[in-house]
């Protein structure tokens, strides 16, 4: 168990910076996920922590002490690779035991034939064997110990790779997209297993993924990265509820958030498709902004509830995706071009097939981002006497 601290980690490949001064503090026993699209620098960062790649500047600290000068095997970190990187010529037992063999036997005791001269080799190998079996039983792969990786399924290889990491009792587990080579069903299963493994081992996990679902479901905290920066660091719920940046909002959540172009009006309130949101943003009047609404925060209005001050916008149902427990409705809204507005509604929702409808959402659930894409905290959100936020209607037109 250990804390990990990154201080101003910078990495340049040639002139192009891949990481721009990453600062990150990871608590003891924390499950931290680095998430981001490919090329955002998350894999490079984890490889720097592992010692496989030198950083151009900055320092990696474990338990408060810098480990930059240490070789990968001296860092007490274990890594699970996306490809698993199992040694194809060794059995499962050999794969899991290798870190211990390297640790406890000298070079002479590992050389072919010469190793037979070592008096203590047999005893050490027996100890390693016991350790390997203990780890294998934790992962339920004891029956596979004599097989080679080629004779294993993807999920079994995954477990062997985990076993090879666990057997060293490392301070930190590093995982570089460990689930992305598995099929969808197994991925869901292994997600649970990894989370449970973390709960059992209570070791610090640093997990890299491009899959926001993995990030959301397993982590204590998530660091969303983009272009060598950390855009936002926080609990999964925070990233979802209060995305600090439009790119975070876009990346986290499925289906993706609806992003609507907006303009800031005279009083600082954003206007979306001609419809004013009753809030103050503090942004200069006339500047452009983006309003994000999660698909579950917007829904077709119940019929016949026109209120004063509403703006009518045509919204026409384009298609409905049935996901079993819920529907994803795609609406065409005038002014958005081809981009649909997505609504997530329960399966029993009566959306019909007639097409025209009104879309309604709570202004309090809208995320406002300025022209640079940074989150703006609205103030003076108009409250009703009852304390309920004003409901704002995007009203369906008559014909398209």
């Amino acid at each position: 168990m250990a804390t990990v601290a990154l201080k101003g980690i910078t990495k340049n490949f040639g002139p192009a910076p891949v990481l721009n001064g990453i600062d990150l503090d990871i608590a003891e026993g924390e499950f931290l996920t680095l998430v981001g699209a490919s090329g955002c620098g998350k894999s490079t960062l984890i490889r720097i922590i592992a010692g496989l790649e030198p950083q151009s500047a900055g320092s990696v600290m474990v338990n408060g002490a810098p480990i930059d000068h240490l070789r990968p095997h001296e860092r007490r970190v274990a890594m699970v690779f996306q490809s698993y990187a199992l040694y194809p010529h060794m059995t499962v037992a050999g794969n899991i035991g290798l870190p211990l063999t390297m640790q406890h036997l000298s070079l002479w005791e590992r050389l072919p034939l010469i190793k037979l001269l070592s008096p203590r080799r047999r005893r050490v190998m027996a100890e390693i064997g016991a350790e390997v079996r203990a780890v294998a039983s934790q992962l339920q792969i004891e029956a596979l110990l004599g097989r080679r990786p080629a004779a294993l399924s993807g999920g079994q290889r995954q477990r062997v790779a985990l076993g090879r990491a666990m057997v060293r009792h490392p301070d930190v587990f590093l995982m570089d997209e460990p689930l992305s080579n598995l099929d969808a069903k197994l991925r869901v299963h292994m997600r649970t297993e990894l989370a449970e493994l973390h709960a059992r081992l209570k070791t610090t996990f640093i997990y890299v993924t491009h899959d926001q679902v993995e990030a959301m479901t397993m982590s204590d905290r998530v660091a969303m990265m983009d272009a060598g920066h950390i855009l936002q660091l926080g609990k999964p719920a925070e990233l979802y509820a209060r995305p600090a940046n439009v790119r975070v909002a876009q990346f986290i959540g499925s289906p993706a958030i609806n992003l609507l172009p907006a303009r800031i009006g005279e009083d600082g309130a954003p206007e979306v498709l001609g419809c004013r949101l009753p809030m103050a943003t503090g942004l200069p009047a006339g500047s452009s902004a983006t309003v994000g609404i999660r698909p579950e925060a917007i829904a077709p209005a119940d019929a016949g509830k026109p209120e004063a001050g509403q703006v009518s916008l045509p919204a026409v149902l384009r298609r409905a995706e049935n996901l079993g427990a819920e529907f994803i409705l795609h609406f065409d809204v005038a002014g958005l071009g081809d981009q649909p507005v997505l609504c997530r509604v329960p399966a029993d929702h009566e959306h019909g097939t007639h097409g025209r409808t009104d879309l309604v959402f709570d202004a309090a659930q809208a995320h406002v981002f300025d022209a640079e894409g940074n989150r703006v905290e609205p103030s003076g959100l108009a409250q009703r006497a009852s304390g309920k936020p004003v409901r704002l209607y995007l009203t369906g037109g008559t014909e398209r």
Partner: protein
Amino acid sequence: MSTLSLARAPAGRRAFGGRQALIEKLTGIGFATPAIILLLLIDLVPLGVLGVLSFTDYELGGTDAKYVGLANFSKAMADPVFRRSMWNTLLYVAIVLPGSVGLGLLVAILVHGRKRTRSFYEMVYFLPVTATLIAMATVWQFLLHPKLGPVNAFLRLIGAGEYAFLSEPSLALPTLAVIGMWQLIGFNMVLFLAGLSSIPKDLYEAAEIDGCANGIDRFLTITWPLLGPMTMFVIVTTSITAFKIFDTVAVMTRGGPMGSSEVLLYAISLEGFQYFHTAYAAALTVIFLAFILAFAVIQAFVLDRRVHY
């Protein structure tokens, strides 16, 4: 919309099926025939003739021959020239095989570690493979000349004395072996390079994290075991190539001095094309082919049954 039916073909098709199968069979035979004829003409018929000749006393230009049984083979076993050439050939293989495989592997690992200069070194080491050995043999002859050659000039310079590499009986065969290695290293290097390139980089990184701290550890843990299948292949091909040594002997030493560089193929060519003992040469060739066949069988069985990762 049309519907697609996957029902079984109607029974009427079955009668047609027999004719269809015949046509396919004939087409197959038609395609294979040219290759079979070529194989017969170029390989199998000459081999048969060779086998028949080896049991006769035929001499080139003779009008008849009579069956002599295994006389040619028993003569070969007793023939000091043949026995010496046999021994020399095996000695040559014993020097060239470990030398060119080991050095080829070493050079491949070193060249593999280069990034920008890799293709340059690849070319340099591969040049001897592409060069005509007959021409190169002449160059070597000059290089190794006791008086005029730069090798001896260098040896004299460092005070190591002067060596007649090609006319000293104890040195001739090892010298030829060094030249053979020089030619084979490049080829083996290319094969090993292909093997090295196919080892995933991830494995080295995993090994590094798992504690393989230095090059020896990495070589023993990853490189050597994963190159295993390729190494077997290189060993077999190198053995066959080394066993077929002929051109350097023919150009540089002609089997001398005092028969110290007599090798199998050279002895066969002498018997067959200098002394016109065609039947005896045929028997020697059969023995030679038996050795090559043994290597090929090793290749076919040991190599193909090995685990390919």
